[in-house]
C-alpha cells in the first residue's frame, strides 16, 4: 500500500505534506492539482510533516490536495535510444512534448518503446555473470552499446538462456538469469537507477593518465585534461565560458558527450540543437549530434529540476562508462545548481553557511566530482567520465563558496579572466593562474612521452615560465617606462607575447583555427620554442615591437591556414626567414 499525503503548506515550490505512512528521504511523490500530477521529492521529514520540493510551478495548489508516494527515489531510465535526445532535468524527452510552451505535469518517456534494436549476444547459457556484466550488444548511431545485467542486482547469476542475434524492442526479454537460490530473472534492455546514488560496478579506479584531446591549444598543450579527469572553468560573465565549453564538447575525442545545461540561457541550448546536427565529429567524421545527449534545464525552468539535472546527466554518463566508453560530461553551470540548493535551504529555514549557501555545499560538490573518473571494469575493459563544470562566481570574485569548494576537488583549473576578455584575447584562460595537476603525474608524463616525445613536458614548462617572466617584465615596463628597462627585457616580453598570440589565443569562430590537432600543436610549440631560443639583436625597443608584431601577424596567418597546406608551409618559411634576418648568432 503506497503512502499517501495531504498538502498542508505551500511556499513557492516547497510544499509540506502530512503523511499516513512510511516515507524515505529523497522519495518521489506526485501531488494532484486538478488533472495534473506534480512530481516532487522529499527533502526533509519532521514527524508526520514531510517537506517536498516540487519540480513544477505550484500556482493554484491548495491545502488539502492529495499526494501519492512512489516508493523510490528520482530515477532515470537507461537503455538504447538515448543518444542525440534532448531531455529536461528529469529525463523527459523534450521533443515528445506537445506545443510550443511547456505544460505543467507533462512527463514523457525517455526511450522509444517501438523501435527495434539489432541485438548480438555476448554470453552463452551457463556463463556466470554479475551486475553490470555485458550480456549483449546493440549498435546505436554506430556506437556499440552493451546490454548489461541491472546494476542493482546483488550476487552472481548463471545465464539460463539468451536470445539469438536478431531485432528486439527494449522491453523484449533478451536473457534469463538464475540466481544462487535457483530463481529465474528475465532481463530486457532497460534498467532504472536512482540518480543520487553513484554506480560502483567496476573493479578499480586508477589515476587517470591518458590525454583527452580537445583541439584547444591552451588546454591540450599547457593545461591538459585526461580521460576520466575533472576540471572546472570559473569566470565572470562575458569571459567566454560557454564558447570554450562548446568548443570542448564539439572537438573532444570522446565516444559520447553529455551536456547538462543547468540553469543557463535557453538560446545557448538552441545553439547546440541547431549547430550540432550540422557539425561533423572531427575524430569519426560522423554527425556530432549522434554522440551527444543534452540535458536542458534552462534558467526559466523549475528550480528543483535544476538540481536534479546534473545528477541525471552524471547517471547517464555512468551507464555508458559501464560499457567501456569514453564519456565527456559538461555542466554549465554548477553555480546555478548550487543556487538551487541555496533556494531550497533558505525555504526550509536551515541555518545558512557562507553567502547563504547550505553548510554541506562542500560535501555535495566533492561527492559529485568524485563520481567522474577512469575505471577498470570487471571484464578488464576501461571506461571513463571526464567531467568539466563551469562556475559563475558572483561578481567575478573567485573567493566565493562554489569556486573555492570546486577548487578543492577538480584537478584542472581554467581561470577565465576579465582583463584578457576585455582585450579580446580569447580563450581568456589566464595562463599563470590556470593549472592541470595531471601534468605532474608520472603516469601522464610517461604516456605523453609515448604520444609526442619525452621533451614535451619540458617545453610546456618552459612556455609557462616564459609567460610568467613576460608578465613580470610587463609590470616593470609599466612602472619604469619603455626606456627604463634594457632592450633585452623588451625581447623577453615580446617573446612571451608571441606565445600568447600564437599558442594561447585561438579563434573559436574560424573553421581552421578552432581545432588544432595534437600534431599541429606540437609543430607550433616547436616553432615558437625555437624562436624563443634564438638570440636577437636590436638597438632600440621600438624595433623590438615592430619586429615581433610582424612575426605575430605571420604566425597568425599560419594558424588560419589549413594544416600542411601550401599556405601553411609558406607562412612557416616566412617566419623562419624573418627569424634568420634578425638572429644574432648566425
Amino acid at each position, binding site marked *: 500500500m503506497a503512502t499517501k499525503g495531504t498538502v*498542508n*503548506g*505551500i*511556499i513557492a515550490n516547497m510544499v*509540506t505534506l502530512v503523511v499516513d505512512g512510511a516515507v524515505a528521504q529523497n522519495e518521489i511523490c506526485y501531488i494532484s492539482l486538478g488533472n495534473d500530477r506534480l512530481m516532487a521529492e522529499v527533502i526533509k521529514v519532521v514527524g508526520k510533516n514531510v517537506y517536498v520540493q516540487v519540480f513544477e510551478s*505550484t*500556482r*493554484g*495548489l*491548495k*491545502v*488539502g490536495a492529495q499526494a501519492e508516494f512512489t516508493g523510490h527515489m528520482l530515477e532515470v531510465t537507461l537503455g538504447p535510444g538515448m543518444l542525440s535526445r*534532448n531531455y529536461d532535468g528529469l529525463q523527459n524527452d*523534450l521533443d515528445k512534448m506537445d*506545443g*510550443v*510552451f*511547456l505544460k*505543467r505535469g507533462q512527463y514523457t518517456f525517455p526511450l522509444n518503446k517501438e523501435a527495434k534494436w539489432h541485438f548480438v549476444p555476448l554470453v552463452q547459457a551457463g556463463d556466470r555473470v554479475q551486475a553490470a556484466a555485458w550480456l549483449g550488444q546493440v549498435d546505436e548511431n554506430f556506437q556499440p552499446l552493451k546490454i548489461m545485467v541491472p546494476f542493482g542486482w546483488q550476487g552472481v547469476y548463471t545465464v539460463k538462456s539468451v536470445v539469438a542475434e536478431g531485432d528486439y524492442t527494449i522491453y523484449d526479454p533478451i536473457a534469463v538469469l538464475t540466481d544462487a537460490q535457483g530463481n529465474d530473472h528475465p532481463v530486457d534492455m532497460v534498467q532504472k537507477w536512482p540518480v543520487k546514488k553513484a554506480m560502483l560496478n567496476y573493479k578499480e579506479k586508477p589515476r587517470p593518465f591518458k590525454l583527452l584531446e580537445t583541439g584547444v591549444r591552451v588546454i591540450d598543450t599547457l593545461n591538459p585534461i585526461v580521460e576520466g579527469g575533472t576540471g572546472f572553468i570559473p569566470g*565572470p*560573465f*562575458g569571459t567566454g565560458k*560557454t564558447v570554450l565549453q562548446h568548443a570542448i564538447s564539439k572537438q573532444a575525442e570522446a565516444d559520447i558527450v553529455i551536456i547538462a545545461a543547468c*540553469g543557463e*540561457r*535557453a*538560446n545557448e*541550448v*538552441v545553439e547546440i*540543437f*541547431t549547430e550540432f546536427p550540422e557539425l561533423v565529429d572531427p575524430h569519426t567524421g560522423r554527425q556530432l549530434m549522434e554522440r551527444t545527449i543534452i540535458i*536542458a534545464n*534552462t*534558467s*526559466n*525552468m523549475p*528550480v528543483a529540476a535544476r538540481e536534479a539535472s546534473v545528477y541525471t546527466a552524471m547517471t547517464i554518463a555512468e551507464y555508458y562508462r559501464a560499457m567501456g566508453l569514453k564519456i565527456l560530461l559538461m555542466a554549465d553551470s554548477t553555480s*546555478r545548481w548550487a*543556487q538551487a540548493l*541555496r*533556494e531550497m535551504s*533558505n525555504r526550509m529555514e536551515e541555518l*545558512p553557511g557562507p*553567502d*547563504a549557501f547550505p553548510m554541506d555545499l562542500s560535501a555535495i560538490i566533492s561527492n559529485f566530482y568524485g563520481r567522474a573518473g577512469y575505471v577498470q571494469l570487471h571484464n578488464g575493459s576501461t571506461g571513463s567520465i571526464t567531467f568539466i563544470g563551469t562556475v*559563475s562566481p*558572483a*561578481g567575478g570574485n573567485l573567493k566565493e563558496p562554489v569556486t573555492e569548494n570546486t577548487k578543492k576537488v577538480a584537478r584542472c583549473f581554467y581561470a577565465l579572466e576579465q582583463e584578457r576578455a*576585455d*582585450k*579580446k584575447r580569447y580563450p581568456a584562460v589566464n595562463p599563470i593562474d590556470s593549472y592541470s595537476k595531471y601534468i605532474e603525474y608520472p603516469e601522464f608524463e610517461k604516456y605523453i612521452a609515448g604520444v609526442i616525445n619525452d621533451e614535451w613536458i619540458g617545453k610546456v614548462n618552459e612556455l609557462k615560465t616564459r609567460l610568467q617572466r613576460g608578465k613580470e617584465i610587463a609590470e616593470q615596463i609599466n612602472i619604469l*617606462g*619603455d*626606456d627604463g628597462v634594457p632592450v633585452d627585457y623588451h625581447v623577453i616580453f615580446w617573446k612571451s607575447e608571441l606565445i600568447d598570440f600564437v599558442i594561447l589565443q585561438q579563434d573559436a*569562430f574560424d573553421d581552421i583555427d578552432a581545432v588544432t590537432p595534437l600534431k599541429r600543436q606540437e609543430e607550433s610549440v616547436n616553432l615558437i620554442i625555437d624562436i624563443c631560443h634564438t638570440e636577437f639583436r636590436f638597438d632600440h625597443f*621600438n624595433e623590438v*615591437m615592430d619586429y615581433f608584431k610582424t612575426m605575430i*601577424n605571420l604566425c597568425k*596567418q599560419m594558424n*588560419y591556414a589549413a594544416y600542411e597546406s601550401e599556405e601553411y608551409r609558406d607562412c612557416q618559411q616566412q617566419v623562419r626567414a624573418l627569424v634568420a634576418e634578425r638572429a644574432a648568432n648566425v
Partner: protein
Amino acid sequence: MATTAFQKIYTKVTQITKATCSLKATGVGYDELATVDGKLAQVVKIVGDDVTLQVFEGTEGIPTNAEIVFLGKAPTLKVSEQLAGRFFNAFGQPIDGGTEIEGTEIEIGGPSVNPVRRKQPSELIATGIAGIDLNNTLVSGQKIPFFADPDQPYNQVMANVALRAQTDKIILGGMGMTNDDYLYFKNIFSNAGALDRIVCFMNTTENPPVERLLVPDMALTAAEYFAVQNNEKVLVLLTDMTSYADALAIVSNRMDQIPSKDSMPGSIYSDLAKIYEKAVQFPSGGSITIIAVTTLSGGDITHAVPDNTGYITEGQLFLRRDSDIGKVIIDPFRSLSRLKQLVIGKKTRRDHPQVMNAAVRLYADAANAKTKMENGFDLTNYDERALAFAKDYSNRLLAIDVNLNTTEMLDVAWELFAKYFRPEEVNIKKDLTDEFWKNQPQ
C-alpha cells in the same frame, strides 16, 4: 473588482507587516489574488490555514478587520488588438483615460517555451548606432540590458533604439520610473508617430514599489500575445530592473527570508531569469526581444543585481562619457552582445567580425598609451597614432549620436585603419586587407 454573491469574505487579519498581511482561511490556491479592503494582494505563503498575502499597494491603513476576498485566480491581463497604443498601470488598468480592454483574460507569468521548440535567433536589429550595430550587434529574440549609472542617458538611447528598430510592437514596462521620464517616452513616441505600435505598463516613483513586481510579467504577457497570435516582432523595454529587484528584496525581507549577497533574496537569479528568458524567436516568425536597463551604483557591476543579470542576459551595453570627445559612447571594452556571432559576417559584410575585433584591439592599445602618457612616459610613434585613431574612432563610430548602416560603419573603420596604421599592425586576415584596405587619399 466587485465581489459576487458566492465569495466568502474574511474579516480577521492576524498579522500585518509593511508589505504583507496574514489571515486564517481555507481553500486558497497558491499565487491566487485577493483584495484587502479593495487593495490587490497575492498569496505568497500558506501554512495550514494561515495564509500570507503580499499587498501590492502597501499595507498602510489596513485595519485588523479589513475585508478580504479571494478572487480564485492568479493575476491576469486581458489581451486583444485593443492593447496597441494604450497606457496601463501595473495591474493592467488603463491610465490614459481610455476604456477598459476587451479580450481574452490570461494569467501573467505563464509557462516557459520548450527549448526544443525555440528557433535560433538570426535576424539582425539595426539601430544605426555603431557602438551597437558594429561592435555589439543585436539580434531579434535577444535579451540585453544597458548597465548604466542613474545619471546616464540610457532612456534616450533606448527610445532611439526602439524607434529605429524594425519592429511591429514596442512594449514599455516602466518600474520606478520618474514621472518626467515617463512623459519623455510618451512624447518621443507620439512625436515619432509610433503610438499605435506602443503598449505601456507603467509604475512610476509615485506608485507603491511592490506593485512594480507585476510590470515585467504584464509587459511580457502582452508581448507573447502579439508574438504568438500575430507572429509579430515585439521589442520589450524594461526600465529599470534594479528597481524591480529592490521590490523583490523588500517583499523577501518582510517575509523573514535569509538574504544572500547585497541583501537580495537567494532566488534573485531565478526571479530575473524567469523574466529575461521570455525573450524568444518563435518558429512561426514572431519574436520577443528584451532591452532592459539595470542601473548601477557607482559603476559597480559586482553588485548582485547587475552580476546575476550579466549571467542571464545575452550581453550587456555600457555607456560611458568619453572626455576626449565630450560625448557619451557605447563602451567597446565592457559591452558585449553574445548573439552577434549569429549575424555578423553572415547578414552583414564578411569583413565585419575581423574589422570589429581589430578596431577594439587598436582602441585598447590607445588606452594603454593613454595610461603611459598619464604616468609621464614618452610615447612611441605607434602610441601617438593609436591615440589619434582612438579619438576618431570614438567620435565617428562609438558615439551614441551616430546613425549609419553597417556597411558604412565598416567603410569608416577601414578608412581609419588606413589613415593611422600599416596593414600588419592591424592584424586582419590577408584576403580581407587585400580587398578592403583603403589607399589613403593623398
